[in-house]
């Protein structure tokens, strides 16, 4: 069973408390978990080996031809079992894609890396790839799936290098290399790599099952149980390691450089996500293919930087963000605080643009060719998406045209307005659609889609007026809960509202749990359920009694409610009816069922209603209803 966010948080907190200041204990526990992990993953292989061993052992007791048959059977079992296990465990991971930079291409970069590797006693990378991402990271690609034998990749985002100063970039490199440094401790480094590898392998495993013979379902079950527990322990160690890597980087290249790089990365990540890339992708509505100079545009946009207002707002938000268990990396402020570089509140000064970017310094004359290579890579990756976006935009334009041609009489109704709003949301963005959404809500205040998008648009502008819209959506339509929670979570994350984020996580956990449980609870009743008094208002009671009085053969009726754990504000009534017995006292189930059928159409109570007679499987429930206080709601005098 997968853990909820709350359970994972509790687990992480428990691990932190248990092993606080006792890292060795944590390492031992992790070692045990790794052994358990391998044992669990290999259990099916072990089973196959045992079964085949049974066949091989039996070979000693049979004669010649029997030996051959047993040997074949043993090998088949071993091969099939081994294949079924290993094809899952030896999952192939695609090597990361990027523009390969050799020592000949970028001697300066390699020299810097050599220096850092020597200083930090880190393991060398097998390949250095320049990617279109605004990031720098280490990737481990195992050749043997969960068994490791990984190839190490250093992934350097070109936009990041274009934006950072050489020393700032060196700080980033130092942080990444520190994870693979001997100074980190052999075990920590191994755990870091195992976690990285297993994380990717298990993610790959959890993809939809391809057709084929494997022990995947069994292994997935084990992984679902094992991975959160291992991850919680590894998470604590990794968090610890992140601080240690920052510390190592600060000692190696200077705390100031590290702080600058962290702040610059935080700011430009927002800039890229919210401005630069969205502007580029808007072109997909009008141009069938991406422009040829995307990375020149990105570079230019990053050089220009965000507006002062945006810079201030985003940085303020970044400093408000708190550390969560969604990522092993601590939040910006915690990282800066750890290296003694946290600026005083209100004293966040803008960073000047670097004179020469790290890309220019480390790539030198080959920068243009690298840009071109990365651009080609990006175009290859985005080609399908771009084409689909373009096609979708064309279809939406056509839809918009047909909506525009709708008769005036219907063009103002809520459905038509909502259809138009949906189209415009994709074509033009939130600002243009906001009045339309308000129009929809004016006609249908509970409209889920309109409330969601209006709330989202407002929150993205840091307008808290969006919150009630999203709360309304969540209260009205459970299907919208995950979407609304995601938006609210991001909003509170930006605001640094850890308490609110926990609330949202709890809401999501509850939603996921209730998704199946609440439906089962509301669609079945048994004698084992807890019953409570009906709590009807006088008006409802009068209406009910009036309805019941219309049944000439009804002599008595009792009413109670099932106590609901999920969505307790909803009500589930149980109405037990007693029909006048015939002179011979024998039951007449047909007549009783007919009465139940009539009453189910006529009885109206503020909630779900189950009407039944005290017969058959309902006998025990009827007894339980009659035991509730004031259950009797009708009796023929």
């Amino acid at each position, binding site marked *: 069973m997968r853990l909820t966010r709350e359970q994972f948080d509790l687990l992480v907190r428990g691990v932190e408390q248990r092993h606080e200041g006792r890292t060795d204990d944590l390492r031992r526990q992790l070692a045990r978990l790794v052994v358990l992990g391998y044992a669990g993953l290999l259990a099916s292989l072990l089973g196959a080996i045992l079964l085949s061993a*049974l066949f091989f052992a039996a070979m000693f007791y049979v*004669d*010649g031809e029997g030996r051959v048959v047993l040997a074949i059977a043993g090998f088949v079992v071993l091969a099939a079992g081994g294949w079924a296990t290993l094809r899952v465990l030896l999952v192939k991971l695609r090597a990361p894609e990027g523009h390969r930079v050799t020592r000949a291409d970028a001697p300066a970069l390699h020299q810097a890396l050599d220096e850092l590797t020597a200083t930090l006693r880190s393991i060398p990378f097998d390949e250095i790839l320049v990617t279109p991402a605004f990031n720098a990271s280490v990737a481990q690609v195992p050749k043997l799936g969960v068994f490791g034998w990984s190839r190490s990749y250093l992934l350097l985002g070109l936009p990041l290098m274009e934006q950072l100063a050489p020393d700032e970039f060196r700080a980033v490199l130092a942080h990444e290399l520190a994870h693979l440094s001997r100074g980190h401790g052999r075990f920590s480094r191994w755990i870091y790599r195992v976690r990285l590898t297993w994380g990717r392998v298990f993610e790959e495993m959890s993809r939809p099952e391809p057709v084929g013979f494997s022990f995947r379902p069994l292994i997935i079950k084990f992984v679902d149980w094992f991975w959160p527990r291992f991850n919680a322990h590894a998470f604590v160690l990794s968090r610890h390691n992140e601080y240690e890597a920052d510390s190592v980087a600060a000692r190696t290249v200077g705390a100031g450089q590290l702080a600058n790089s962290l702040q610059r990365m935080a700011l430009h990540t927002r800039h890229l996500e919210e401005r630069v890339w969205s502007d580029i992708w808007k072109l997909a509505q009008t141009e069938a293919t991406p422009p040829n100079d995307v990375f020149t545009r990105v570079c230019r946009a990053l050089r220009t930087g965000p507006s002062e207002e945006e810079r201030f707002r985003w940085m303020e938000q970044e400093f408000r963000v708190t550390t969560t268990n969604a990522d092993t990396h601590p939040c910006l402020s915690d990282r800066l605080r750890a290296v003694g570089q946290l600026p005083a509140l209100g004293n966040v000064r803008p960073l000047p643009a670097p004179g020469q970017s790290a890309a220019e310094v480390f790539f030198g004359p080959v920068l243009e060719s690298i840009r071109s290579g990365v651009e080609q890579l990006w175009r290859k990756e985005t080609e399908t998406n771009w084409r689909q976006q373009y096609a*979708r935009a064309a279809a939406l334009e056509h839809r918009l045209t047909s909506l525009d*041609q709708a008769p005036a009489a*219907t063009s103002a109704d809520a459905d038509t307005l909502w259809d138009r709003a949906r189209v415009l949301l994709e074509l033009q963005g939130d600002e243009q659609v906001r009045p339309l959404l308000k129009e929809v809500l004016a006609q249908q205040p509970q409209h889920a889609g309109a409330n969601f998008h209006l709330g989202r648009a407002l929150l993205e502008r840091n307008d808290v007026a969006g919150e009630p819209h999203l709360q309304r959506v969540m209260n009205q339509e459970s299907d919208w809960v995950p979407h609304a929670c995601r938006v609210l979570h991001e909003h509170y994350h930006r605001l640094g509202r850890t308490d609110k984020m926990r609330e949202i996580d709890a809401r999501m956990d509850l939603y996921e749990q209730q998704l199946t449980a609440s439906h089962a609870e509301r669609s079945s009743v048994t004698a084992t359920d807890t019953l409570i008094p009906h709590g009807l208002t006088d008006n409802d009671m009068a209406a009910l009694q009036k309805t019941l009085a219309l049944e000439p053969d009804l002599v008595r009726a009792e009413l109670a409610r099932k106590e609901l754990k999920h969505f307790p504000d909803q009500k589930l009534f149980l109405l037990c009816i007693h029909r006048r017995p015939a002179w011979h006292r024998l039951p007449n189930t047909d007549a009783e*069922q007919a009465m139940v059928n009539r009453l189910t159409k006529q009885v109206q109570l503020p909630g779900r209603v189950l009407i039944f007679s005290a017969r058959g499987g309902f006998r025990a429930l009827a007894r339980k209803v009659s035991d509730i206080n004031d259950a009797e709601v009708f009796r023929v005098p």
Partner: protein
Amino acid sequence: MPTTYNGIGTHYYGKKNVQSRLGACQQCGRQVELTSYDTRLWFVIIFIPVIPLGRKRILDQCPACSRHYIVELQKWETSKQLEISGALEKYRSNPSPDSAIETHQTLVNYHQTTEAAEFRQMMRTKYNDNAKVHAYLGAVLEQLGEFDEATECFNRAIELRPDMPEARVGVAQGLIRAKRFDDARQKLDFMEKPGASQLYSLEPLETLALALQAESRHEEALQLFAKLLEEIPALKEHTGFRKNVERSEKALRRKASVLPKRAFSWKRLFSGDPTAPSAGTQLSWRHLMWAGAVAAVVLFFAVIQNEYTRRHRTLHIVNGLAQPALVNIRGVGEVKVGRGKSELTLPEGHHHASISGPVAEDFDFDLRTSFFDRWASDPVWVLNVGGAAVISVSRVTYSKNPPPPGFSYHFGQPLEYFPDVTHPFRDLPDSLRMKSHESRTLTQVEVFPGDAIALFQHFLGKSQWSDALRLAETRLRYEPNNDPLLFSYAAAASSHQQLERAEKFLRAGMTNRPVRINWHRSFQNLKKDRRRDAQLAAEYDALLQAEPDNSALLYLRGRLSPTRDESRRYFERAAAADPKNPFPPYAQGYDQLIRGDWRAARPLLQKARDLAPDDLTIAHFHRLTRFALGEYDTLEQECRDALKRAPLSVPDTARLCELLVAEGKSAAAMETVATFERAATSRYGEEAREMIAILRCNVLYQTGDFAGLEKSVGSSRAEDARLARFHSLIEQGRVADALATKIADEAKAANDKGLLELCVALAWTLQNNAAEARTWIERAAKALEDGDADSAAAAEMLRRNTPPTSVEVESLVLQPQHKALLLACLAHRHPARQSELGGLARRLNVERDFPYHLLQRATAVAQ
């Protein structure tokens, strides 16, 4: 689904709250009226409900394939009430079009057709201006098969919102059903715009394309397929889609296809094609995995069972001998086997057996089958002590019209192996229960329960004389006193030219002690040869030197003497040496008998009979003497007593018939045959036909009904029939016709040499054809001249021109009937002595078999 077998199982009884709706069956896909109802599931015995298994709600039962869903009635009722009341409450608290749609959907889901229809009417009225509601209702009604009302709803929706995609699709579906494809395509035009697949499901476009294809409008269908391919490039890998496109291209005889070539895929070849049109249940890897796991476990236990079988083979040990035998299998164990069967369990492999007791044998043998045969066949190994027991193998086919069973017999080998036996030493069932068209063959192995002589005769009857001789040799080795078998063996060896073999076999028993007289007699009788007799006489002389007072040897030596006087002296010495030896009085009685003095022979043969009541030869001549002396009543009573003990005894029946004929009770004789026929037919069926025919022929001959005899054998080519035809023709004077049967030309047993020639000669004589008679006399003399001393003397008498003296006639030792025949011929040759020779022949002509009547006619003058 409830199921019953022979009326036992589960069954639904009762049907309440029946609701029906039009829809497609999820199982068979037919568009049918699906029925839902409340019922009760019962455990039934011969369809009588016995145990109630709960009330159920049957959902969507298909009238065609009867597949349906089953829900516990109480759960269904609870869920239905709660969900519907919940939806209605939600609608009452928020009567929006969306909640109305939700409520209606709940009613439809729970098959509340009437309530849903009422609610639908309310929706159509209340939300008459809401296109979304009408589009929804159209879609639901279409699912429910109410296409007219669905079209109304879609039309209303499109009237309100001409742009509404759902409404346009709904109307288009109606138009497709109405085969108004152009209008439908116009309604679906928005789906043909670039990028439409990003917003809508293009399934209606495919439906339209397929509808056009079905109407042979392939050009337009291909246009739509091309649009679909353009929008959803992944379709090029979809086998079903490709087939549809190819169908239209083929119809248009297009050489170039809109479909790009599909790359070859091993995975598609071996793992099945998930995009291919469904053809029922597909075998998944998971199924294979489970099947493999089950197969592995089954295989494991099968191999273990195979190994157990290998280690626990049963060796059946049979003993056909009277004395118990001790069988020791080295390393396995020892078992004492009395007459009958025993068993030993031992593993397959090479073994050594030691047998002690009535026989002493040591031999190695292999008990081995192939690995796979241990699963496939049921082999049986039988250790046959001394090879003496006869093991019969019966293969019986059970079917509506079964073929005759097959039998084979095995003996003489120490170890027999039978590869596939269903009933080892167990009785076969009288009948098997199976379907009328079925056929099953069972194989039984058992020890042959009958007499060896019966099996011997069976082999001879089937012309398997080699098996017959081998059987006799095997059995006589351990049962030398089995006189019937011994005589049959000697006779069969003689008639099948196996004298060398028989001589070799019988000679091996000559030195056995005590001397078995019948064994020696059979050996002596094998060949009628003077030189051989002289040689044998020398051998007996040598034996007598060692044992001069051995009565048996003296008797046997007497049989080989060239003169009658010498023989008589040996017989007297033999009788004196051992008064309890039955053969000397027998020989002396026989000596009287061949003189025609039946009265003198009677006490001597009686004495011999008293000393050896079981000896068949003595019994035969004792009975013949009594027959000749006319002791019919006693003999008839003895025969009838014997037939009471064994009603189907052929010899006793034949004797009784002969007696009755002799008594002049021909009708009674025929009735005896008829009685035998009924009893034998009911017991042996068709197999009794041959025995009955022989009996009938005998009686017909004995009664002198030669025409009847000829008629009864008809044109049969069987040996007995041919012989009977020959007899009838000779007796009817049709000698030339008789000779055409070639019977007279065929080889004869040593004892019968010259007999038929003499018959033919006599027949020609009676026909006054002296030349032919002379020729056949010469042939008879030629046949007799190589025989023993008496035969040679007979040949000499036939050739010479002077009649034989009285002494010569008296001393001539031949079978009575043979001697009568010879004398009859000589009587005609020498008319002067006709009275004397004919008279003696007539006295000797006692047996009523052929050539009784011929002799009677030939010697009538001497009467």
